[in-house]
């Protein structure tokens, strides 16, 4: 029986001979591992390595296993690892509904069935009827919710969070943070959160790994 969850097996990332990241750890389904460190410490670099978009300027080695399967050499789109950035990065040329449709896994077939799923998803995040809206007209909190839902609809097996709450104001931050962690726990996703904000780490409640 393969180990469920996200495993980092002696992942070492260097740039110009300097070691930025050196981590071995395992995140169980539903668990949150927080990676903390000052800016420039290589937190985001680690996430790039896990999603498979690390820049050529880095040297990296070590294995990334997802539910026991080695995904280190897979193309990014075959990894089923979801990520949320500090910016929501909603595609500006697509409507809110189309953004969600972009994320919704292809195995859901048929126009009507896909549309239904998207409508349900919008209701889930309190944005019923927003399908035709321009993402550029949403508030920061609304954008964050759409970005989260877009990611969840793609059926990821793990969730990476790259300081996704730092742009939100304090009130929204708690709300969105709770939403993200609740959803991840409900779906049994291993979560890797990188942040420099202690409040994030406290809210996550899990173990903390320090870099730099």
């Amino acid at each position, binding site marked *: 029986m393969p180990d469920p969850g996200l495993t980092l097996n002696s992942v070492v990332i260097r740039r110009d001979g300097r070691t930025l990241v050196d981590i071995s750890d395992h995140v169980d389904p539903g668990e949150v591992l927080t990676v903390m460190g000052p800016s420039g410490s290589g937190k985001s670099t680690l996430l790039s390595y896990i999603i498979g978009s690390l820049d050529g300027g880095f040297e990296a080695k070590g294995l990334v296993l997802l539910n026991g399967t080695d995904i280190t050499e897979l193309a990014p789109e075959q990894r089923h690892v979801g990520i949320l950035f500090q910016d929501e990065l909603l595609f500006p040329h697509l409507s809110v509904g189309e953004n969600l449709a*972009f994320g919704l896994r292809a195995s859901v077939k048929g126009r009507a069935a896909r549309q239904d799923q998207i409508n349900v998803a919008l209701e889930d995040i309190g944005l019923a009827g927003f399908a035709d809206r321009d*993402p550029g007209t949403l508030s920061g909190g609304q954008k964050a919710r759409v970005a989260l839902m877009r990611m969840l609809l793609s059926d990821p097996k793990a969730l990476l969070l790259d300081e996704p709450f730092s742009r939100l104001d304090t009130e929204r931050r708690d709300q969105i943070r709770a939403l993200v962690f609740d959803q991840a726990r409900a779906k049994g996703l291993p979560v890797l959160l990188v942040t420099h904000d202690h409040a994030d780490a406290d809210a996550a409640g899990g173990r903390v790994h320090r870099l730099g």
Partner: protein
Amino acid sequence: MNPRCDTPSARARFLPWAPLLTLAIMLGPVAAGVLGTVAPAFGYMPALGGDGLTLNAFAMLFDWPGITRASTLSMTTGLAATALSLLLVALICAAWSGSRAFRIIERMLSPLLSVPHAAAAFGLAFLIAPSGWIARATSPWLTGWDRPPDLLILQDPYGMSLIAGLVVKEVPFLLLMTLAALSQIRTQQARDTALALGYSPVTAWLKAVFPRVYAQIRLPVFAVLAFSMTVVDVSLILGPTTPTTLSVQILKWMNDPDLSMRFLASAAAVWQLALVVAALLLWRLGEITIAALGRRWVASGARGGATRVVQTVSIAAATLSAGTIVFGIFGLLVWSFAGFWSFPDLLPGAFTLKTWMRHAMNLWPIVTETLIIASVATLIALLLTLACLEAEERYGLRPGSRALWLLYVPLIVPQIAFLTGLQTLAIFTGIDGNRMAVIAVHIIFVLPYVFLSLADPFRAWDARYGHVARALGAGCDGVLWRVRLPMLLRPILTAAAVGFAVSIGQYLPTLLAGAGRVQTLTTEAVALASGGDRRVISVYALSQTALALLPFAFALFIPAIVWRNRKGLRHA
């Protein structure tokens, strides 16, 4: 290593070769053309019985009585036009950058830039000719003329009107390049720092910003210098006639029915190339001198002043430069509808559609030909550019400054120097004189502009959109087609418009590659120049301008309509 792309398609096999293929399409003809010019210049052209190595052609060239004058003209007009354009651009930026006037100038750039050289030259000619608008506006109350004076204003022997025609077209080009450079380096801080140290705005810009900007626009400046020295169409319209500039004379020899004159034409083209190299070296020397003087000026700590004066002078010069094009085009418009128009009346006695009606039938096939050539050349250039940029992204290629030099090769090697040889090669291989040949040659010049226009926005695109899309399950092709290209719609259309305008404006490439048999609006308009029928010239030059401007309108309105409900892309 960049994110892997698993696309086992034919396209995926082609993509890594795109940069090489593009370079071959762009530089292959230039290299072949230069060879095809150099060989006959030294007597080698077997088809015409030349198989030795001789300097006869050069001997003939230096025996031609006009050689000194033509060579001097090439140097003086080129250097003067380039220096004046650069000076004006530097002063405008120094005095006005960051102001509201500057934003108005920015907005006027694209349309001014897209007006073809020939049309701008005709417009200027109709303004300053002895019977032109300026003379009419000041006669007889100021000048006392009641008939056009017998003055050689147009096509003056010193090339002044030619220089003026070049400056009004090169200023928008250099200004655009300067703006691109300004957006790349953070100039605002440097300028603000200098202001805080007590420097006057103009001095602050010249001392703290200009040296860095100049390093970025050096290649465009070289291109302007080479172009101004060797331009043919503007020179045919505004340049001196006895003797003409060297490039025009080369074209005459090329068109001589006596094929042996090609040896002479080739030698002259090699000489022209040597002159351009000499001018570039001279310019470099000037750079060094001015840099040394500039250092001393910086070290002196002089805070400068005279802001007002520079502001006034530069805005007046910019207005004059832009106004020349605008009023020139307006003049063409009036002439094309003019009935009887006697001197010194400011406007024609009557307006009529007669000229347009009479030429509509002839115009139509030429417009179609022009459109086909420009569309195909632009489309191919756009596809190659996108393939190069995408390959650069996928395979982590890092083009250095040397790659940028390669892009400027077709713009710095004078057209007359390699098109002459290319035509010689084409004649003896039988591939000249058709539309395909013209398109192939247009691509050489369209490509660099399309690439330069699109590369910055393409590279500046936030790669995290791609990371998100791939984490959501999209492949590399999916990211390109579904996310990146739609988001870049506006810059893509703008690049296409630039390429289109470049193709529309080509005179010499069309004439030589088409062997005179492929007629575009530009070749026809310039051919009409010697006839001097202002109404007909205006019809052709205006059609040419309209065709060049149209795609810019598309580039403006299509994104505005398609993305009317997309706030995030309104200013992209």
